[in-house]
């Protein structure tokens, strides 16, 4: 994982980026209506898959914009990068 394809800047070195964990985690619409266990699941639990992981990265030493990455956590190969708001692409490791 030495080059990361920023959706705005193109391929750049990994050290320009920072990973901010799992993507596509939706905040519960009405926190008061859910149980403590459901809230804990939202705040603390993570998919942490051995395989394809959809995650958020920020190009902090470049355009400073956020985007999403689909990466195989076994090989660290980046399978796709896409902009925030776009649907997660279907990829195979």
């Amino acid at each position: 994982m030495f080059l990361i394809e920023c959706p705005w800047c193109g391929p750049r070195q990994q050290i320009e980026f920072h990973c901010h964990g799992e993507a596509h985690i939706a905040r519960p619409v009405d926190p008061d209506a859910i149980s403590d266990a459901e809230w804990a699941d939202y705040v603390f639990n993570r998919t942490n898959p051995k395989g394809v992981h959809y995650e958020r990265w920020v190009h902090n030493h470049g355009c400073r914009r956020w985007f999403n990455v689909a990466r195989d956590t076994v090989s660290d190969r980046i399978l796709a990068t896409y902009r925030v708001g776009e649907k997660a692409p279907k990829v195979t490791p």
Partner: protein
Amino acid sequence: MAKYSIFSLIRNGLSYHRNWQRAWRSPEPKPDYDIVIIGGGGHGLGTAYYLAREFGVSNVAVLEKGWLGGGNTGRNTSIVRSNYLWDESAALYEHALKLWEGLSQELNFNVMFSQRGVMNLAHNLHDWRELNRRVHAIRLNGIDSEILNAQQVKAEAPILNVSQTSRYPIMGASMQRRGGTARHDAVAWGYARGADARGVDIIQNCAVTGLDIRNGRIEGVETTRGRIKTRKVGVVVAGHSSVLADMAGFRMPIESNPLQALVSDPVKPVLDCVIMSSAVHVYVSQSDKGELVIGAGSDLYVSYAQRGSFDIIEGIMGALCELIPMVSRLKLMRQWGGIVDVTPDRSPIIGATPVEGLFFNCGWGTGGFKATPGSAHVFAATLAKGEPHRLAAPFSLDRFRTGHLIDEAGAAAVAH
């Protein structure tokens, strides 16, 4: 089990060391066990050992997908200490340290536990205040800890650059003299030998492929070497905890990150304590062979590849050359990575899960090696009795629901 002693060494020496008994058997798995431990690292083997020795449960199998101690047990920097801030952590890690102190005698296996002292450096005013607070809190818990000023730090480790004009000036350090290092492989082997001698079956090259759960209760495990029936399972698989939890059908508050370490070429003795700096995220000690053993920070992304990013190595080696200028003349011989299971509060998870009979011991993150005997002991007690050991109780999975977190993320002696 043949006892190791000076006499057995001489006797075997006379026969050119050709007749040593093998340290543990390599049995075929039986169809059922009282307890199955998944994961043959130090924590898992230790759990089996204490189950057999202290809790009278010897119909136990330890399943290991690779070889014993080939995961994080063999991939750490082997530092042992108990200088944790919060009462719950202090009690648990101190329990472990006390077991370390008698472990070689207990196991009749030299784990080379060397209480050479662990020094945590402070580089700025914030570090220094935090360090003072922590040392006093640790002392209130009855754990040895002292404060050293810059001159005393220099006296302990003359190779450190303590100049106030250096890039990372050293204001002082905390020192736990009972802390130190141990030989990581020997810990796994010693526990394996002790457990095997008490009837535990250690089964290597046996990966778990599924968990047999019926009506919310564990009934067995599916493995690459067939199905094994059991009504109690202890999962001690570190970085793969989420994978096992996924098989069981629940989610864990864990992310798996690569953590790297490296060793230099061997040099004459230059360092007789452990130096840790959380500000630059480097830990260094000198092995008995003379290599400097250097630990790095973890990569902040999920990965199961047992290697890390090159920029982490570059970052810590740059910092280490500033802290210890002689390092710039050393060559690095080996580098490796382990997959650490990191929880949101940087404290472990020990105990029951939503599945009856299924227990997890995980989340030790970047600092599990030091806890090996304590972790194994409290987990064995928890498995044997079906209820958490007194020291393990605060570390339940349920704490993420109740909110009783043990937040060592900013409190432990190192940043995570």
